[in-house]
């Protein structure tokens, strides 16, 4: 049995913190330890930040954060209709160099912190990023 929670949030910077707080409370309820709660918090925050930053057409539009809790894992999907992007153009950031770039860390951090990450983006439409974290990583 899993529980489903959904949040619908305007694409504005000031509400990313609200989502972050709700998600950390949820992850905490679900039994994740402090470190995992932090990981989930950061990952979801990065996904929301991407919607708010890169969603060009209509900043005011809402995006959805859907959470499924139970069966030893938490699954969080951040779904926007903010225009999408061409995933083929995505370049992993070059780390470990002496002049790091200011942007481009978000997706890298999400992938590093979550156990499974699936992104689906349709240009002209929107993006959906699904992230899974297991209670105890096997």
């Amino acid at each position: 049995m899993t529980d489903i929670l959904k949040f619908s949030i305007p694409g504005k910077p000031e509400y990313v913190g609200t989502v972050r707080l709700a998600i950390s409370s949820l992850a905490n309820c679900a039994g994740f330890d402090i470190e995992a709660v932090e990981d989930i918090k950061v990952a979801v925050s990065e996904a929301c930040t991407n919607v708010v930053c890169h969603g060009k057409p209509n900043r005011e539009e809402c995006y959805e954060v859907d959470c499924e809790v139970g069966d030893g894992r938490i699954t969080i999907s951040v779904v926007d209709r903010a225009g999408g992007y061409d995933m083929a153009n995505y370049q992993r950031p070059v780390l470990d160099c002496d002049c790091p770039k200011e942007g481009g860390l978000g997706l890298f951090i999400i992938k590093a912190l979550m156990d499974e990450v699936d992104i689906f983006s349709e240009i002209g439409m929107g993006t959906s990023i699904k992230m899974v974290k297991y209670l105890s990583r096997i």
Partner: protein
Amino acid sequence: MSLQLQSSYNNELDQWELTAKGEVDISTAPQLRKYLDGAYQEKKADILLLLDELNYIDSTGLGVIIGAFGRMQESENRIKLVNPRDNIKKLLSITSLDRILCSDC
């Protein structure tokens, strides 16, 4: 979510000491950028960023710090992170930023 910033110039060690408390995310990162740039424009020197009471930072905040780091390189000044909490340490290590931004974290 809020971010409190405080700065003072240490004349003995010739460096800025900036304390950041609270959270740096997309809504507070502009505040951090302004503060870092303001200090550096006032006096070109190294910046120590004291993170003892910073609870949270994400890629937006790290980006701001990287930006300042880049702009300071021309005059060979550095920005150093001091005493980050474990969650922030983890992010710095994942992104390999600890190598250039930390001396002891």
